[in-house]
């Protein structure tokens, strides 16, 4: 399976660019007298990465150019046939389009709402300590459990959304309406990443010097003006970091939600690339087709990340 940069919370916190003066690391840098000690420290990590990442990835690349029998009975070299078959398939292009729609919509809503919440909590309104703790929780919930909960919440006949159907019969039906099903998985994914984004936005906001905000307030800038002209410009490194992570995760971390909530349906309306890989590879035992799709997805995510770094990072100002 393809795996891009993962969002291990601890590691991410350490590397998250936050708008505050950089610590002067040069003074604290540690040198080893003997370079072999350094290498010895690195070896276990390299071995782990090789065993659990590069080796399986290399095997996936090999499978992508063969037709692999699931039980290991042998394989046939087919060159680029697997890729050609996938790229010729309109259904596959359909899944690419859906993946992009999903990525843009879920990243946009997860980041937008998280930023709004973080700005509100940062104002220290009544009960902000409670919100600060509670809003971080959604990220801790596993995707399948989340899918189950939202499947119930969004069920057209029994869930909370049933109210809308009682007012306007048939307005909400994710079982047969593809757009409704897409909205359902976007809501679910955005809800999960809202908590994640919130933590980063809040910690970054707390790095914004109070003096700036206070002087702006004295000058008569209201909540929105302060956010627009002071806080958000100072948050650009965090926004950029979260953008890269959210886009990447929406391509990879969505299959659990899709599997539980829609199984890719109705009529493929929510068949994302990663769900198709899961379905073809694990359910359908088409290892080679799934491997080829994984490689395409990997290249796509790498490409997207490069684009983001080249064209969006230019607008980011690190202090």
């Amino acid at each position, binding site marked *: 399976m393809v795996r891009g940069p993962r969002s291990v919370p601890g590691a991410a916190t350490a590397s998250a660019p936050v708008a505050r003066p950089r610590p002067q690391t040069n003074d604290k840098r540690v040198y080893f007298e003997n370079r072999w000690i350094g290498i010895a420290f690195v070896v276990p990590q390299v071995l782990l990465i090789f065993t659990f990442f590069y080796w399986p990835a290399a095997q996936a690349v090999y499978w992508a150019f063969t*037709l*692999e*029998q*699931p*039980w*290991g*009975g042998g394989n*046939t070299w*087919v060159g680029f046939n697997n890729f050609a*078959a996938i790229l010729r398939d309109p*259904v596959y292009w359909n899944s690419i389009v859906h993946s992009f729609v999903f990525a843009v919509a879920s990243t946009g809503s997860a980041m937008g709402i998280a930023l709004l919440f973080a700005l509100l909590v940062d104002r220290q309104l009544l009960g902000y300590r409670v919100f600060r703790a509670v809003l971080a929780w959604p990220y801790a919930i596993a995707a399948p459990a989340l899918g189950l909960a939202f*499947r*119930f919440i969004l*069920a*057209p*006949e*029994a*869930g909370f959304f*049933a109210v809308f159907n009682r007012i306007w019969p048939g307005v909400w039906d*994710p*079982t*047969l*309406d*593809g757009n409704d099903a897409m909205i359902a998985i976007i809501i679910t994914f955005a809800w999960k990443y809202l908590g994640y984004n919130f933590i980063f936005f809040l910690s970054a906001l707390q790095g914004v010097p109070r003096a700036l905000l206070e002087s702006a307030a004295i000058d008569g800038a209201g909540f929105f003006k302060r956010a627009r002209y002071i806080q958000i410009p100072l948050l650009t490194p965090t926004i950029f970091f979260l953008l890269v992570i959210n886009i990447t995760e929406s391509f990879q971390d969505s299959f659990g939600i899709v599997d539980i*909530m*829609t*199984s*890719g*349906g*109705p*009529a*493929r309306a929510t068949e994302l690339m990663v769900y198709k890989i899961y*379905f*073809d590879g*694990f*359910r*359908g*035992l*088409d290892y*080679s*087709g799934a491997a080829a799709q994984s490689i395409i997805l990997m290249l796509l995510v790498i490409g997207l990340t490069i684009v983001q770094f080249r064209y969006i990072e230019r607008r980011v100002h690190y202090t």
Partner: protein
Amino acid sequence: MNKNLLTAVGALALSASLAAPAMADKTKFDFWFGLTGDLAQRVGEVCQHFNDSQADFEVVCTSQGNYDQTLQNTIAAFRAGNQPTVVQVYDVGTATMMLSGAYYPANKLMAENGYTVKWDDYFPGIARYYAASNGDMYSFPFNSSTALLYWNKADFAKIGKTEAPKTWEEAAEDMKLLKDAGSACPMGINISANESWQLLEQFSAIHNEPVATKDNGFGGLDTELVFNKTKFVKYVTDLKSWYDQGLVKIKAKETGKTFVEAFAAGECDMMMTSVGDHGTVAKIAVPGLDWDVAELPVYAGTERKNSLVGGASLWVLAGKSPAEYKGAAAFLNFIAQPEQALFWSTVTGYIPVTKSGFDYMKAQGFYDKPPYTGREVAIASLTASEPTPITRGVRIGNFTQIRAEVSNGLQEIFANNKPVQEAIDGVVERGNALIKRFADTYPGKTLP
């Protein structure tokens, strides 16, 4: 030389198994199965009964999740050389298993370990589904079921009927009357990949209509889907028109209740599902729900054929020791006993797979007592006729994906994205590409 080696190993194994009771050290072997929840506990009880019944072997039974996950895990374990001795594989996995080269044929296993299995004791519909083309059985049918029509007797009484509809024409009339009498859901269905079993496969079998050429794939890997030219098209057209008239409702976990739950709650008057759900409905039905089961309806003028068996069979995997195979043979022999069939069918909803098991259950009065009354309809449906080449079953590669294609096609139709014929043609075309891909994966191999 090879023969000598085998004999030597055999002798060693024999002495090992003879010595086993003295050492009080049982030969352990693994059995992986794909059932969860209540059913997993029931399998555990069967295993416990086996372990208590003798002193030589101990079966270690582990649930691996659902059928798909069990197959995935088993394949991963097999590739790593840690496979279980016995594994439960679902019906549509049969083609993959037969081509895998990873199994030890059940008939060979039993013969080598001194068990005589009366293969003709199995119901023909069940035996032939799992058998190779020459009739040899490479796996043991374990949990078997077939699809039935569940109907709400009380609601049918309101429209003056005391029997379930036997034809679809009659069913259509009944559904209209039920709707006029105030029913919000005359029939509950779903159109996910799982329901391809009821809507396409069972329907085609009882109407003696092919799903694919070459006897539904039993005749070779180069089979082609043909259900865009059979009565299935008319059936889907009718279902869609009944749906548009509000006679058929989609009930799924995504809408809030599955059709089984909606039927058990008294909301839907009819549904089509496995006899395996008979126990579930009895357990979760609202108090006083007056319901029964019947055979699936057919179109008027159809000579009804046997319905298909669903469920899973037990495969013995290659590469285990003779002692483990001896244990596996004892286990398979044990679960085939009529007493075990009675226990298993009582606590689950699955049907007995042998005639002797069925006779034993009848003699014990099993089918006379509620809530088990009605389950004999499943046997009647399975044995409605001698299996024809078409009603023997469906043995097509990549069938899990084909079922998903069927579901996508039905969803396109029900969401008004495409007309019926165009959508089903599309399903057949994509399905044929999947079949071709499966055949290409196994070049030069043929189904046994």
